[in-house]
Structures are given as C-alpha cells and as structure tokens.
C-alpha cells in the first residue's frame, strides 16, 4: 500500500470516527436536555360547552351523556354532550366528585356525610363502615370503592369485603390535607391531596407509593384522572391542568379555556375539564 493511499484510509477513518462522536454527543445531549422525548398527548383546545346555571364540582360520562354534580344548587344532573339537562335530581346535599360503575352513579354527599347510590331514579345510601365527615370524592370499580374523606383527612378503601382507612392530617407520606378526589387504577389509589397541593399515590394495602407535583406550586389540587400511563390534576386557583407521567415528571400544562377547574377526564380520545367559575366544560382534542 502506498503512503498516500494509507493516509487517505486513515483520514477517512478519522472523519467517520469524528462524525460518529458528533452524532453520539448530539444524541446524549438531546437525552440530557429533553429527557427521553416524552411529552405526553398534545391536547389542543377545541371548544367550551356552556352549562350556565350549573356550578359543577364532579362529573363523569355514561352512554354519551354527562352526569354532573351541581354543588351550589344541591343537584345531580344528566345532560347531553351539548350541556342540555335531561335529568334533574334535587335534594342532594352538596354533591361532589361522583363516579359511575355500570348503571349506578355514586355521589359523595358532603353535606350529609354519606355516599349515595343513584340508579334510574332510585336512591340508596351506601353502607360505609366508618363515619364520614364531608366526603368529597368517590371511585367505584366492581366491588371496590375508594372515598376521599375531606374533613377526616383520610382515604377509605374497600375491596368489597374489608374496609381500610389510611391517613391523618399532615403533609408527610400517608398524611393528607383535605383530600378532594380519588381514583382507583390497577393496584393503586390516586388521590388529589388538595391543600397539600400534590398527588399522593398509595397501594391497596395502604402503603405509600409516591407523591407527585409538589414542586409545581399548585394551589388546591382538586380533581384527578388517571388513564394508566398519565395522571391529570386540576389546579383550581391557577386555572390549569397539569399532566404527569407515572414517574412524576411533568409532561405538560394546559391553561386555555380553564377557569377554576374542579374535575377532569379523558373519554374517546377527548379531554374534558369542568370549570366551576365559568360554568362550562372545556373540550380538548389530540
């Protein structure tokens, strides 16, 4: 091999190595600066559904209709997806973050310290093995039920047979400061720990799993929704929704169309947020 040819081979090899080093460095820097690139769903504001006259605290969707708890007016309402009332049930006492399981609507009755089961006009009180003080949120999956017991600063959970109570007033792990909403997902219970301004996750044996969102300086974390991969929380005083992954990393902040949001859910590829102050439902598309 001639000297010139040898030099050309060496130069080419150096160029390739330099290029590889550059690409590797760029990739590493991207990972450091932007994490793994996970941003979560890119929700875009689509429209606002007017529900004037309703002061919504909690809601859910069933059979292409909203069920809404109208806290100020002590009503449980069923509306069309355009916000037109089709069922109005009065005489509830400050209904809060409700849940639907099958054909049953479960409503925490803050004013009467009870969980109410509503089914096609029939109203029953759920037998809870502990005294509640202003229940603010409930979730039901089959025989399982979790309750955010607001003034007792605790979470109640039943697997259908036994009841578990977790928490006391405070800001440590397994302590709560006025929990307002709760959701069961997989083997965990997700809690809107309202005035600790965070999400707290516990397992169904009552063990602490994780706290999320404390660094985001929320002011009243009021409503929670979990879709398996993402956790959504409404930040009432700051008119926003925060979206986290399971690790607790903030993925995005949603502000458009929100005014004192109290509850949130994802249904058929759309995100819905109810606004207590503007009496509306904000709808977002991906």
């Amino acid at each position, binding site marked *: 091999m001639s000297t010139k040819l040898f030099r050309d081979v060496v130069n080419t090899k150096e160029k390739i190595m330099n290029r590889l080093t550059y690409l590797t460095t760029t990739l590493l820097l991207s990972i450091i600066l932007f994490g793994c690139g996970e941003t979560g769903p890119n929700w875009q504001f689509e429209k606002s559904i007017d529900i004037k006259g309703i*002061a919504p*605290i909690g809601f859910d969707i069933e059979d292409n209709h909203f069920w809404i708890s109208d*806290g*100020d007016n002590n009503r449980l309402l069923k509306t069309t997806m355009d916000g037109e009332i089709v069922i109005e049930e009065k005489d509830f006492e*400050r209904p809060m973050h409700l849940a639907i399981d099958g054909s049953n609507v479960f409503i925490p009755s*803050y*004013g009467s310290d009870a969980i109410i089961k509503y089914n096609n006009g029939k109203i029953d009180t759920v037998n809870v093995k502990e005294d509640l003080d*202003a229940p*603010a949120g409930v979730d039901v999956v089959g025989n399982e039920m979790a309750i955010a017991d*607001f*003034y007792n600063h605790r979470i109640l959970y039943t697997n259908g047979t036994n009841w578990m109570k977790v928490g006391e007033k405070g800001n440590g792990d397994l302590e709560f*400061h*006025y929990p*307002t909403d709760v959701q069961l997902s997989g083997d965990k219970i997700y809690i809107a720990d*309202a*005035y600790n301004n965070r999400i707290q996750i516990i397992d169904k044996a009552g063990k602490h799993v994780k706290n999320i969102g404390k660094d985001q300086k929320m*002011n*009243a974390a*009021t409503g929670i929704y979990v879709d398996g991969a993402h956790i959504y929380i409404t930040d*009432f*005083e700051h008119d926003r929704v925060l979206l986290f992954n399971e690790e607790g990393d903030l993925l995005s902040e949603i502000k458009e169309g929100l005014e*004192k949001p*109290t509850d949130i859910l994802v249904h058929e590829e759309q995100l819905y947020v109810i606004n*207590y102050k503007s009496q509306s439902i904000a709808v977002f598309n991906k």
Partner: protein
Amino acid sequence: MKNIKFMMLATLMFLFIGTTESTAQKTERDNYTVMVDGLGCPFCAYGLEKKFKELKGVKGVKIDMETGQFDFTFPADRPLSIEDVENQVDAAGYTAVRTSINRADGTVVKSEEKIKTLDESALVTEEIYVFGNCGMCKARIHKAGNELEAVASVNWDMDTKMLSVTYDSSKTTVSEIEEKMAEVGHDTKNEKTASDVYEALPGCCQYERENNE
C-alpha cells in the same frame, strides 16, 4: 246528650286551636343574612354551611358564591345575636363583612359600620409581606387591617403576597400592623402566628410556612 256532644266538640276545637298556635310559634323563624368575604373555593365554602348546621335548627341555607351572601333561618324562640352569627362565621375560618337579621316579629337588626376620622397629613403607605393563599385569606387580611383604628386602607395582592397599607404614622406602626396580621393567622417576615391559630384556618388558607413551622 246534646250537652255531651257540645262539650266534646268544644274540647276538640280548643285542642285544635291550641295545637295550631303551638305549631305557629314553633315554625316562626328569624331570617339571617351575612355578607361573607372570600367565598371563592366551594370545598371550603360548603364547610361554612356545615359549621352553621352545628347550631341545631338552622334551615334554608343559601350561599351565593359570586356575591358572598349567606342566608339561613333559625327558630325565633332561640334568637341569635349579630355577635353570635359573626363568631360562628369566624369559627369556620371566614370573614363576615356585615350581618342583618329580620326577626319574625318584624324588627330588623344590622351590624354597625365604623367610620374612621384620620389626619390625612399623617398618612403614609408601606408595603408588608404577608403570607396567604387565596381569596379567603385576602378577606381576612383586609378585615384585620381595617379593624385597626389608625389604618386608612389596605390592599393585599394574592400573587405577590404584598400588603399595601396606608396608615396614620402618628398612631400606629408597621410592627403593630404585622402583629395584627399574625393574630388572625397570617405570618409576616417579622411576626409568626401561633400554631393553634394557623391550624384553625380553613384548608385552602393554610399557606406554606417558612422554616417548616
């Protein structure tokens, strides 16, 4: 026989009238209206209603979150005073701005509004950092400031936490104003609230304290 029938009828009528009068007395109720400042968060505002329900006999509760108007009725034979009502509002962590009572007998009782006369040439304006969170905090901070005889006006900014206060510098000091804030539950840079007072604040008002206090 006729006499016996007459006697029975008379007795029944007497009993009926007596029962009706007694029911009327029992159902007579006073109407109470309290203007409550800072009713912004429903989760805590419904707690105000809950607090009043501790007074057995409270009915017809209405809360208007926009205006802060809180209405209820109470048995006329157990009248509450303006002070009773405002103390109950305070106990729930809220701030009563003014109260009026329409008694069942037609009399009307209203809370008095104080008029201050201050020497304008002695007025100065200072800014004080006051800890707090929400609209309810703002209402409490404003009321506490206005209760001081030498304070002309106050304005607390929820975002910056700065309290702009105009006062008669010949009659009070920033130190006294800070003490007043701490007395009602709000730390300043120089004055700390007693733990039991802080703990009694509604959930939304329990701001993060410095030095993990």
